[in-house]
């Protein structure tokens, strides 16, 4: 589904991604973790072309993200993305947020889009908030709306960029529960997160990044079970001690 081959990226002299190679198969849940500044957020943004790689290739469903003739809006419409800071559009209501892409990109009618939006809001437990504005919701609620907005496009895969790290602790679980549900329904997911509980529960593979490189790319059981590189060990002990 998602193939990343030798992806590299520089900001002038600073190398943010260094020869990264990994893949996410259909129905797989891959968790990417690593210390801050390790390049994981950059990597996931390259998958739908929000950031560009300078060397290597990324393909999604066989379509090359970097190719000049690729219809990026179309490709992005097929991949859902959830951001660290939610990024709901503040000037329109919750249901309009979910409808915007459906109407403008997929060409659905307003009624059709609203039906779908309300169904998704029900699924994330927020159908009563449909006509509120994003700023009137809590962080956890906003992030659940953001997930619904991404799902409304009927994506073949979902990208999560630290979806819980801007949330207060008591709101993290309501978002993780929705994500676990998605994973159990067979959604293909690439998730940048520090939530190792989530990884243990639903991940198929764990990718550990450090200084722009993929240091480990293993199954969940290996990652949590066996001995690891020193950096990963150190990182994991810090994460799990909280």
């Amino acid at each position: 589904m998602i193939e990343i081959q030798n992806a590299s990226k520089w900001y002038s002299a600073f190398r943010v991604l260094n020869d990264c190679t990994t893949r996410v198969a259909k129905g797989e849940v891959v968790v990417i973790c690593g210390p801050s500044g390790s390049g994981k957020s950059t990597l996931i943004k390259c998958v739908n072309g929000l950031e560009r790689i300078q060397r290597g290739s990324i393909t999604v469903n066989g379509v090359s993200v970097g190719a000049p003739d690729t219809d990026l809006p179309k490709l992005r419409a097929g991949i859902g993305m959830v951001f660290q800071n939610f990024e709901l559009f503040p000037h329109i209501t919750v249901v309009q947020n979910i409808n915007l892409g459906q109407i403008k990109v997929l060409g659905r009618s307003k009624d059709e889009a609203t039906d779908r939006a309300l169904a998704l809001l029900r699924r994330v437990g927020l159908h009563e908030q449909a006509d509120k504005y994003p700023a009137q919701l809590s962080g956890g609620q906003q992030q659940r709306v953001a997930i619904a907005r991404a799902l409304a496009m009927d994506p073949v895969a979902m990208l999560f960029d630290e979806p819980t790290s801007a949330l207060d602790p008591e709101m993290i679980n309501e978002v993780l529960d929705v994500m676990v549900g998605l994973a159990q329904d067979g959604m293909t997911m690439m998730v940048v997160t520090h939530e190792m509980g989530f990884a243990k529960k639903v991940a198929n593979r764990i990718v550990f990044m450090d200084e722009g490189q993929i240091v480990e790319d293993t199954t969940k059981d290996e990652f949590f079970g066996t001995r690891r590189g020193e950096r990963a060990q150190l990182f994991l002990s810090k994460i799990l001690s909280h």
Partner: protein
Amino acid sequence: MQYNWNWAVLITEPYLGWIASGFGWTVAVSCAAWIIAFFLGSAIGVMRTTEIRALRIAGAVYVETFRNIPLLVQMFLWYFVLPEILPKSAGDWLKRDMPLPEYWTAVVCLGTYTAARVAEQVRAGINTIGRGQHFAALAIGLTPIQAYRNVLLPIGYRIIVPPLTSDFLGVFKNSSLALTIGVLELTAQTRQIGEYTFQGFESFTAATLIYLAVTFTVMAFMRRIETRTAIPGMISLGAK
């Protein structure tokens, strides 16, 4: 100080008519110029926020050019110089056949000048929104144009209502420069009344009060617009 007061001059014909007509031209110049400034300025402001280098440079050149030459000099360039450097037929049309040449020159001059200011506000508004919103709009598959149209501009304009208001009032005040090329707007008319009647104090007072009244009306109106368009739950960035 010797001065013969005669406030009645303000309501005597033809002077009352002069003031009314002057105010009319002030409004006509300001509004037409603002339409140009708003649309041209928005386009240039957007250009300066795109990924395309050539557009960004073109936008910056426009802004720096129009910002760094005094408005009065620009007025003379449009009015006296432009018809001479255009091909002869176009120049002749500007000089002879264009209807209301002073009016349209003033409108275009003020509009293009103010567009540079509007462009800076629009750019600042969009930059305040941040990359996250831009990414989110692209991530649901919107094209760059759709992202500006449906997300970045609607939010950006709300943020910059206060500075745009002061730019609009700027156009309104700057429209007085049109008198230098012969548009008989409010300031020109009141000066003329002063010269005809030697009642400069009264006529300038009339102009002053009209400018004050318009300023306060526009500000009150824009404050209502600001409240009306405020996004529920958000603290407006521009709130005073």
